[in-house]
């Protein structure tokens, strides 16, 4: 009896343990969380707490941000992330690069997500400028900063400045100075953006990111196509089309390209081509 009893107890308790574990994890998920706080400890404090493991702490902060961001991909609601969540994501990337300013991945992820979806091009540029200062051999970072100035902030002169900075660094593609020169003319905005994006795709080998950039590229190509068509329309009829359908009825184009983001292209009041999805 004395030998059998512990075994019976263990056999009895094991299934109970397994069932409790799922219950308690479910319960833990339902506990009220500190939602709405984007606070991450400031980098100087984190640096002290990390002791000699600055680099490792930086890696883990980055992974923490990345895992969080990846986990939101299943969310149904739009926009996918709330305002404070973007802020937290930015803060954690900032903390990660505060511990190790040479770490490239946080900058790379910031450029891929914070600008387009997160709508934080200025913050992203602050981050990237830190990276560009430390990683002074890397042309991608000033290239990204230039793109953000050009595309999101519409500061073409600054964009050209950063592109020239990038072109002086090792391994930079030879088209950068030309691109910088082109930016000085305010026209051809979409076309320039396409050149930028094509260069980014060339340097991206992560499949998910590549796909994301390619979707953007296709959307921009659609816009470029429609912009050119409106120019043709204006040539032919002496005025701008009021709606995109006008161009089909007047046989300028056969069909309106599809927005890969699921929105619909339209002509804005100022005559520019936009889409209801806002490219997000």
């Amino acid at each position, binding site marked *: 009896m004395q030998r059998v009893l512990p075994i019976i107890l263990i056999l009895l308790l094991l299934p109970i343990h397994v069932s409790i574990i799922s219950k308690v994890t479910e319960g833990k998920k339902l506990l009220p969380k500190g939602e709405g706080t984007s606070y991450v400890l400031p980098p*100087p404090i984190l640096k002290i707490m990390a002791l*000699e*493991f600055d*680099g490792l702490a930086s*890696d883990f902060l980055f*992974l923490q941000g990345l895992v969080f961001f990846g986990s939101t991909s299943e969310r149904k609601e739009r926009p996918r992330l709330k305002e404070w969540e973007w802020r937290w994501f930015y803060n954690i990337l900032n903390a990660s690069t505060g511990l190790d300013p040479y*770490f*490239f991945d946080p900058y790379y*992820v910031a450029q891929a997500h914070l600008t387009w979806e997160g709508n934080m091009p200025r913050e992203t540029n602050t981050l990237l400028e830190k990276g560009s200062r430390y990683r002074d051999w890397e042309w991608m970072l000033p290239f990204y900063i230039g793109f953000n100035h050009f595309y999101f902030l519409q500061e073409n002169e600054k964009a050209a400045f950063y592109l020239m900075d990038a072109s002086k660094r090792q391994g930079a593609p030879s088209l950068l100075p030309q691109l910088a020169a082109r930016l000085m003319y305010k026209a051809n905005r979409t076309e320039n953006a396409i050149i930028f994006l094509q260069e980014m795709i060339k340097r991206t*080998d992560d499949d998910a990111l590549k796909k994301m950039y390619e979707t953007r590229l296709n959307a921009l190509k659609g816009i470029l196509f429609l912009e050119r068509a409106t120019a043709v329309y204006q040539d032919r009829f002496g005025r701008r089309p009021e709606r995109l359908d006008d161009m089909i009825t007047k046989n300028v184009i056969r069909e309106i390209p599809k927005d890969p983001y699921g929105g619909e292209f339209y002509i804005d009041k100022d005559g520019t081509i936009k889409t209801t999805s806002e490219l997000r």
Partner: protein
Amino acid sequence: MTAIWAIAVITFKEGIRNRAIYGISIFALLLLGANLLISSMIMQEVGKVAVDMALSTVSFAGLLLVLFVGINLMAKDLDKKTIYMVLSRPISRPQYILGKFFGMALLILATISILSIFAIISIFMVKLSYPGYFSRFSWPPILLAISFITISLILLSALTFLFASFSSTSFITLILTIVSYIIGQSIMDVKALVEAPQAVGIQVSPVTVKVVQAAYYIFPNLSIFDIKLQAAHGLPISLSYIFWAVSYGAVYTCLTIILASIIFRRREFP
């Protein structure tokens, strides 16, 4: 000299036989295995993360070795009163301390060498799986970083002898060593923070600044030997820095051991 050497060899053997050393090694091996897993989650700088993981593991395992094996080596003699047997022989107390210290240094050297081989294998395996993501990677800074870790551990173990020379139990030695380690690793960052507190928007009293500045001179500045970040990114480390860092380590270690033997000589045993 032969007496010192004899004690060193005994200490080394005693350390190697300690069970804790197996635990530490298994723990380190697990972490190095995790290196493969964590590196696979990184998009661009896989090499940097692999080196971070490997070097941090070596350093952390070394720290555990000093704290849980090293301290026991002398504390056991004191706690179990076996020190009477040693001191009744024609060995002076400073010789005893020196011998113990050299034995411990040998133990650190041996353990770190073995762990480094595994660390290098783990980096090598990650490099084999993701060869395209090691753009700024080179081996010499990594080996240098490992040597610096060793120096810093030897310095820390010298401190444990200093604390053991006057504290009554090994627990106090352990606490004092941990505190000095934490202070030593962070003192430079803390000093930078209290001297420019506006960076994080806090206020620091002038007394605190003075205390931190005093601590800066008293406690060992272990962050000098932390070049893991530079090694991970393949950043240049000047020869003069290596020279000054090694000199700093040697001088501080000598001072600590000399102080330990002075205190230990005056110590009275019940």
